[in-house]
């Protein structure tokens, strides 16, 4: 048995040598230079997802390059017969996995060369924290927007720690707004119509990428539109609405903030009301927490309420659900919440001032700086981050931004 095994092995070796000789592998032709191929894109070590551009450089050897082919995960994608630049786009999918890239160049004479690249998986310790904190900053000097500042002029302090500004924009950054319109009894006698007309003008003046939602409320929510940039959708059905009922401002504001919660980018709530909450179930202190978390900017166009006098307008205001002290406390909390959010309160002399006030607001939103940074310190959900912003080279400038935010 052993003898016959060795005889068979010798026979196999003989046959193999014969075949190799016939193919020229053992002949002098193996000295000719084959094409040289290398993968230049993606770079080595880079995980790939989605559509990926693959580029290869091929240098001819002794013979002209006849064909260059790409194999992605061992599947032939395509080839070129002649091209100065070899480029493909493949879909790598969204799975975090390795991918095998091979480019084979052949000249039909000296043979073929192959360049290979294995893209790595994205390791968890390589994940980048992309939780971008955005600040919407208004810089004014002598009542006018101060433009022309650059990224280097700003220093952000998050809980006292300087932050690296990674994004910087100024001007028409798109926003998402909730227009919160009081339709209670205090808006009777044409006041609601005037306010609605102001809202129409505001929506018509929005930019293409801006979106808004209208929430109409009295002691409950009367109308809620979807987020849209189409004016006719936002004001659909408003012509039938009559002002009546009490006021549940806190509840409506809370709902507005929740509707903005999963929206990205700049978030704005525009409140048009006298601000006297009567029938809400939620206290403004809780709403303030929601504002801090949502990081929406609140703008309160405050209408004077019936019988309001200069100096202590709330001293004699009693309603069934709140006494004068309760109303004063709620109003103070609302004021503080608005200012803390980086917005402002504008007291209107009359309902006829609404359209102009809304236009001013739109102009203001368009003149803001938008600074983005990735907070260097995380303290856990619900932790308060106090913000401070310094601006260099702008003496006398007035800076307005949110006072802080609650970590999510």
């Amino acid at each position, binding site marked *: 048995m052993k003898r016959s095994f060795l005889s068979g092995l010798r026979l196999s070796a003989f046959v193999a040598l014969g075949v190799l000789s016939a193919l020229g592998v053992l002949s002098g032709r193996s000295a000719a230079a084959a094409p040289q191929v290398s993968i230049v894109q993606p770079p080595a070590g880079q995980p790939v997802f989605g559509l990926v551009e693959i580029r290869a450089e091929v240098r001819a050897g002794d013979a002209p390059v006849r064909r260059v082919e790409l194999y992605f995960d061992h599947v032939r994608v395509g080839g070129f017969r002649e091209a100065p630049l070899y480029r493909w786009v493949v879909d790598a999918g969204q799975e975090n996995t390795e991918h095998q890239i091979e480019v084979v160049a052949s000249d039909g004479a000296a043979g073929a060369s192959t360049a290979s690249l294995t893209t790595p998986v994205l390791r968890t310790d390589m994940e980048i924290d992309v939780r971008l904190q955005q600040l919407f900053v208004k810089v004014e000097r002598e009542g006018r927007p101060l433009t022309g500042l650059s990224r280097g002029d700003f220093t952000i302090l998050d809980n006292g720690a300087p932050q690296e500004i990674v994004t910087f924009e100024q001007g028409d950054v798109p926003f998402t707004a909730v227009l919160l319109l009081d339709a209670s009894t205090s808006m009777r006698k044409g006041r609601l119509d005037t306010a609605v007309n102001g809202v129409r003008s505001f929506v018509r003046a929005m930019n293409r990428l801006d979106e808004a939602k209208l929430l109409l409320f009295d002691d409950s*929510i009367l109308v809620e539109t979807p987020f849209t940039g189409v004016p006719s959708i936002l004001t659909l059905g408003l012509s039938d609405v009559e002002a009546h009922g009490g006021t*549940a401002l806190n509840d409506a504001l809370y*709902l507005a903030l*929740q509707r903005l919660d*999963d929206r990205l980018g700049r978030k704005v709530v525009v409140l048009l009301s006298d601000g006297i909450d009567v029938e809400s179930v*939620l206290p403004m202190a809780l709403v303030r927490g929601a504002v801090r978390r949502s990081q929406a900017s609140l703008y309160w166009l405050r209408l004077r309420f019936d019988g309001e006098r200069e100096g202590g307008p709330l001293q004699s205001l009693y309603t*069934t659900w709140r006494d004068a002290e309760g109303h004063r406390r709620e109003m103070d909390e609302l004021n503080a919440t608005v200012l803390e959010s980086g917005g402002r309160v504008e007291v209107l002399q009359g309902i006829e001032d609404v359209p102009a006030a809304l236009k001013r607001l739109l102009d203001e939103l368009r003149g803001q700086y938008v600074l983005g940074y990735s907070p260097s310190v995380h303290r856990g959900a619900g932790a308060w981050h106090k913000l401070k912003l310094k601006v260099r080279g702008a003496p006398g400038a007035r800076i307005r931004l949110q006072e802080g935010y609650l970590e999510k």
Partner: protein
Amino acid sequence: MLSGPQAASSEELAGIETGLAEELAAADPRSLLPVAVLHEALDRDALERREIALAAHAREVAAALAGLAARRKGDAGRPLATRLLLGLAAHLVHSLPTSLDERTFLQVLAYDENDETARLFLAAGAERAGRYPEAAVQLERLLKAHPENDSENAEARLHLAVNLRRLGKTHDADRLLASLIQGPSKATESWVLAVAYHETGRALLAAGRLDEAERSLREGLARLPGDEKLLLELAAVRELRHEPAQVRQVLAGFRPGHAEGAGGESARHRYTHPSAAVLEQTWKDLVGAVPENLPALAAALQRTPGRKERNRS
């Protein structure tokens, strides 16, 4: 007669009118009703036209006529006086200032201390003015006078619960709210039930008892599906637990237009404004009774001593 260079004072004029009415009532007691209704109607019209002096005068005389009715001998006097005053209050409860009806209701209680409508409106007025101890006293008296009428007094018990909590009597407030929630649901109007759940939720949220709040609010939503305030309070529970995704999930089910009170108004707004239906009905009944009492008035006018002077004038 109340304005111009030779105007009489309201007091003088009221004295003359009341004196005459007294003569008429002495001749035939049924003559009082049309005269009183005339003055109450005058008050309504004058208030609407913002003729404040005329309205006040007409109201003064109407109240005096009710007093006359109350002083009549027999069993019919005080009930008529009460009816006249409740009819007068029917429009006063909608007028400004909101305290305009208070004097009228106090006068009702002087003639019938167990009148539920007057007590409830007085309590609501005191509550609106921030006089919570006074509101609680009125409501306790109402419930003491009508202990048998639990379902009809649900509104009073709800107001009492809210005011007791303001006065620091949280245990009593909780007990009252629980009795409203646990009572037979058919006997309790839905808006009362809704506010009872709202206030229970508010109290538990304020105390930080989030698990209990959630249980109560979910129970409320099972009985009052889609109730806006209950959804908001449930969202607030999640807010206080720092669960933003859960907050959004709770409010995703919210749709506008779920006002749960009677007549399309919200429950909390209904709480603010006690129903004036009893008052309106009383007023309609009074107006309806005028024609049948006019012959008595005509006859009384013929029999009173001042007839000749009146004919001359």
